[in-house]
């Protein structure tokens, strides 16, 4: 498979070569965003042990370069709670609308939200629960979402777009390093994907693979419906023995400037049972055998409507987790979290918005909580 990928890359590169355009300057676009957000948890006297509350800042700086009409490059630096990271560093080699090769470090095509992951591109301060990257309450107990966004990885992606009638078909297929975990893995360990100590490389000499297909239908001049399906699979431990797969479905309905979005993600993750599972796990064997899988799924349904300079947002999202738990875990064998969010993004001046939202958390195993976000987002 690796040899086939190299051959495809070379073929696409040959097609992408166009005569130099001496009279056309290389085009560069600089863009960036800054989000300051204050998270208060009125239901807790001291929320820090369970969440990254109080003030946080997310910042990004991106440069996009069109080298020719078929070759472009993107580099994006991001700084957030986890420190400085390279969010993008890739080249696009486009042979045709229907065939583009992306190589480097990028967010592979999975779901709909990751395309809007930048704080300046979505209206709430935090992300939907299936894509949470550490801003949810009790994020350690839940180990964040199903696939934190933006998922950034090294690899190669084939993608393309085809227009027919008033509709658009998108596809993508990719091979990336994939999520990482330990040999005695019980779930993904996201810190390993952003750790210089473990290097920014594949941890098991085996790529994870994935694909996505989406169809955008034009309903009329002011309305469209986009439907998508995504999948990813591979092994996440250093010995490439513990398998995982993730599947997702998404929908975006746009009517004039009103959006209704919905996504569902599900992940099945194999876990290491170990030599002494009775001491390791909270629940004993069933029919004399320990189940070596956990299942985690999540969804969100979100409506966004502009009223003058104010974008109103209502969101309902949730996470669910099935499977054995570590003996030390606060969760049960079947844990559920539902969250209800009401928010507003107010355009103050060009490029600057105030974001405010209230979130009600309904945990099946932990005390219910209320969270309030208030912040400012700027794009430039």
């Amino acid at each position, binding site marked *: 498979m690796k040899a086939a990928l190299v051959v495809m890359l070379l073929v696409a590169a040959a097609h992408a070569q166009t005569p130099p355009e001496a009279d056309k*300057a290389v085009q560069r676009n600089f*863009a960036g965003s800054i989000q300051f957000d204050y998270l*208060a948890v009125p239901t807790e006297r001291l929320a820090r042990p369970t969440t990254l509350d109080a003030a946080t800042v997310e910042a990004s700086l991106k440069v996009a370069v069109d080298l020719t009409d078929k070759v472009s490059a993107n580099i994006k630096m991001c700084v957030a709670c986890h420190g400085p990271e390279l969010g993008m560093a890739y080249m696009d080699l486009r042979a045709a609308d229907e065939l583009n090769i992306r190589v480097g470090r990028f967010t592979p095509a999975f779901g709909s939200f990751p395309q809007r992951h930048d704080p300046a591109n979505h209206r709430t301060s935090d992300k939907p629960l299936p894509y949470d990257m550490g801003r949810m309450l009790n994020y350690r107990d839940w180990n964040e979402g199903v696939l934190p966004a933006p998922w950034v990885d090294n690899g190669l992606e084939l993608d393309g*777009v085809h*227009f027919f009638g008033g509709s*658009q078909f998108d596809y993508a297929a990719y091979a990336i390093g994939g999520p990482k975990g330990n040999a005695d893995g019980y779930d993904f360990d996201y810190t390993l994907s952003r750790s210089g100590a473990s290097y920014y490389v594949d941890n098991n000499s085996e790529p994870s693979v994935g694909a996505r297909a989406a169809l955008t239908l034009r309903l009329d001049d002011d309305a469209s419906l986009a439907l998508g399906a995504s999948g990813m699979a591979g092994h996440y431990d250093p010995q490439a023995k513990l398998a995982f797969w993730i599947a997702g479905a998404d929908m975006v309905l746009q009517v004039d400037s009103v959006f209704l979005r919905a996504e569902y993600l599900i992940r099945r993750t194999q876990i290491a049972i170990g030599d002494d599972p009775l001491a390791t796990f909270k629940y004993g064997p069933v029919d004399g055998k320990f189940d070596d899988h956990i299942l985690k799924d999540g969804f969100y349904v979100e409506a966004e409507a502009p009223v003058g*300079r104010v974008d109103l947002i209502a969101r309902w999202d949730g996470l669910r987790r099935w499977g054995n738990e570590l003996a030390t875990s606060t969760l049960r064998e079947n844990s559920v979290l539902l969250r209800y969010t009401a928010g507003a993004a107010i355009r103050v001046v060009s490029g600057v918005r*105030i974001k405010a939202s209230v979130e009600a958390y309904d945990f099946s195993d932990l005390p219910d909580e209320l969270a309030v976000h*208030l912040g400012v987002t700027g*794009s430039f």
Partner: protein
Amino acid sequence: MTTRLALLACSLSACFLFARESGRLEAPPGAPVDVRLGCALAESRCTRCHTIDRILSARVGSPAHWQDYVHRMRLQPQSGILPDEERPILDCLVFRSFGADGLATLGAR
């Protein structure tokens, strides 16, 4: 914590009260009808993935620069920008940045 949050809310509310921004991708006064229609189209299509502010704050040096930019955006997944919508959107953005002279450099449709 409640006091800090209240102070922050008051400060941000003050910004809101004094704000005077439409938040629309408006065509400049005197723009041709085609350009106005292109701006309405751009506002509808581009906000699928990002705010209109991304367009307003873009640093673009020439009409050809906008041409590459819009073309790259059209090919984004689920952009919803059909091939025959690329030029009207481009016309709007070029007219906003460079006026009728800039539009003339793009040539006929």
